[in-house]
């Protein structure tokens, strides 16, 4: 029995997903069959640069700076973790290399852990066999080694998509831990504030505490919410009262300055958070890599059908919930075989994989009500239908190239 558990001392794991898709150009059905370079024909470099600049200035650079300051101030007591997608790194390199240096600076503090995922932030974990998934995981691993000289020991799949099969494969590839959503669908009455193990394999599963995570990620500036305004001391009090081993606060990095604009006070909140949390003698900060070393699973979770941290449904319906999405997904999947058979497939394979980025299917989501509003906010298209038309036109063009 771990001494911390005996005294109910929760550790706080702050983890951020850092991702940007490489967005598409408007591609008409009449452009299908062209000979031009697919990378430049499909992807809107100017749009991507503009968005990346904006988010880098509003979020990545100031937040990295603030976290660096806090890490230095607390002398090893304050820790954070990231996963950086391959598409994000490519956008950094193409448009704003300073952002990579700024993450490198954080990595050198020794108080930052990085996770692996699929390089392309794809849905390849849902393919009929997991060969392509494994390739993309290794690509991410190689990228982390090359750019940051770091080998992650914990894995987080695209949008925390998880099932028994994925857990087993991730274990096989060699990871010690995997992250997913702490939803009642898999936990029932049990608490997300402990480590679990999958039904048929032996890997440690870290579960996102979604009420506390969403308090920051979604509700922070919601004036109608009973917790508004959310202050660091209020949040720290909630955390300290949460029983368990580890409180996993997993959120989009763009929460800082982009989803929650600077004038909401989100940076002030982050600045004071370590101080307020460390005021409680029972609280400390931990990274996923440390967590899987320190804690043992308290139980088993059996997840035969994929879950995720997206939307209210917490499943994969965000990307594959309607006929358009399923049709596009199947078309895309079917290109693996012809592309692999080609003589020099590198460029086409890269393009194919960039198209696998889950965001392109997310834009085609037709779910209404609360979820739909979030979708519309991030959607570069007038409607999900337009998202489908554009994406499908591009896939049809790639399909012709694959069989050419």
């Amino acid at each position: 029995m771990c001494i911390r558990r005996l005294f109910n001392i929760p550790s706080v794991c702050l983890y951020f997903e850092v991702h940007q898709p490489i967005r598409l150009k408007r591609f008409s059905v009449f452009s299908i069959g062209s000979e031009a370079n697919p990378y430049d024909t499909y992807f809107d470099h100017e749009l991507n640069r503009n968005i990346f600049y904006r988010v880098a200035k509003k979020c990545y650079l100031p937040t990295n700076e603030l976290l660096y300051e806090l890490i230095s101030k607390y002398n090893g007591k304050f820790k954070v973790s990231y996963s950086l997608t391959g598409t994000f790194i490519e956008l950094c390199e193409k448009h704003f290399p300073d952002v990579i240096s700024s993450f490198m600076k954080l990595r050198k503090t020794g108080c930052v852990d990085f996770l692996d995922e699929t390089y392309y932030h794809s849905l390849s974990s849902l393919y009929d066999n997991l060969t392509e998934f494994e390739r993309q995981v290794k690509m991410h691993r190689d990228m982390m080694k090359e750019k940051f000289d770091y080998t992650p020991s914990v894995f987080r799949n695209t949008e925390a998509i998880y099932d028994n099969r994925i857990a087993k494969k991730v274990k096989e590839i060699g990871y010690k831990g995997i992250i997913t959503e702490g939803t009642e669908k898999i936990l029932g009455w049990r608490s997300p504030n402990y480590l679990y193990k999958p039904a048929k394999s032996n890997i440690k599963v870290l579960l996102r505490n979604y009420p506390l995570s969403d308090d920051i990620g979604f509700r922070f500036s919601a004036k109608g919410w009973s917790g508004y305004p959310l202050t660091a001391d209020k949040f720290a009090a909630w955390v300290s009262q949460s029983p368990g081993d580890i409180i996993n606060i997993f959120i989009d990095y763009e929460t800082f300055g982009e989803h929650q604009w600077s004038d909401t006070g989100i940076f002030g909140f982050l600045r004071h958070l370590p101080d307020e949390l460390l005021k409680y003698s029972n609280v400390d900060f931990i990274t996923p890599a440390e967590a899987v070393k320190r804690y043992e699973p308290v139980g088993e979770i059996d997840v035969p059908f994929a879950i995720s941290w997206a939307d209210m449904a917490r499943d994969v319906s965000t990307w594959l919930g309607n006929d358009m999405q399923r049709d596009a997904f199947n078309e895309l999947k079917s290109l693996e075989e012809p592309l692999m058979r080609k003589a020099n497939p590198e460029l086409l394979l890269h393009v194919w994989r960039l198209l696998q980025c889950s965001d392109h299917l997310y834009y085609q989501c037709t779910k209404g009500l609360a979820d739909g509003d979030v979708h519309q906010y991030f959607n570069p298209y007038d409607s999900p239908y337009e998202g489908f038309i554009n994406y499908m036109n591009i896939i049809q063009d790639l399909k012709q190239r694959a069989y050419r």
Partner: protein
Amino acid sequence: MRGGGRVEKSMALKVAMIGWEYPPHKVGGLGTHCYGLTRSLADMGVSIDFYMPHADKIKTDKDNLTFKGIGEEIFPYDTVNLGGDFFERVNRYNELCVKEIQKNSYGLLHCHDWLTINAGIMLKKKLNIPLVLTIHSTEYDRSGWLNSNQWFIDIEKKGMENADKIIAVSYYTRKILMKKYGVPKEKIRVIHNAVTPIGEGGKKLKIVLFMGRLTIQKGPEFFIRAAKKVLEAEDCLFVVAGAGDMLPQLVDLAVNLGISNRVMFTGKLTDEELHHIYRIAQVYVLPSVSEPFGITALEALSAGTPIIVSKSSGVSEILKTCLRVDFWDIDEMANKIVTLLRYAPLRKELAKHAKEEIKFFTWDLCARKTFDVYKEVV
């Protein structure tokens, strides 16, 4: 339903509504609107005398909805040939309306568009009762923003100034009323049109449908030009349903573009024919240059047909289940037509969600909101 106190209050109200279209005497959305609106208002207990140039063919099954033919023939939309004695007839109709209506006692006057507005203004002064004016289209819309006729604009403006409240069929129209006619925002209430669902049925064919008057406002030329582009990629049939002054010019255009064997001009269709073509078409396009609402788009949706609508339309501002285009963007219009024809899941998703969304567009709702406007002025 928040209708508890509504009934006894609406019982007391007697409305003189002055129109000029009502099924089966109907050429456009105004007639459809008057039909749906008056029947729902009557169900709510409002008594309506509906004044028309001719009312012989109109049947009513409601005690509190009566039709009164004045005895003057006018067809303002079928032709832009406004020569002859058209204006005299309009004047005569308005005068006759005044004469007839003042014989009875009403609590409120409700006019539709410019054609009946003079009667409304005169009666308002004579009877000292409030006037509500619904704007279904302005001269700017009808002229496609080209060579607008100042005579119509002046009379529309006069009507808007004299009305106690104005109902606009969309925010799109409200904006025009504010910008071009100087109407203050507080005076305008936006009430979107509705649809009586046609329902699905029949086997879908590769038909792309245009339905509307063949006038510059409705943008049929853009439809034909998009057809040319579509036919480069996909074989299908284009149906142009409707009559109007542009017909010869459009036929010429189709011939010159070499697509006359793929474009069919049907002329004006009966209701039955219309429902059939709505049902068997695979795509409906509303390419209007300026469309205050666009009820036909809702009709197509209600028949299970996906729609592409002009961004310059009222219907595009409220509908989620549609594809939007700029009316002049032929390439994008063609892109959307081809993808709709080609990608079955796209049609399926649109049809599925349309079925849900169409339920929000009921004449009962339109009537309730109209009655709220009545309450404001009575």
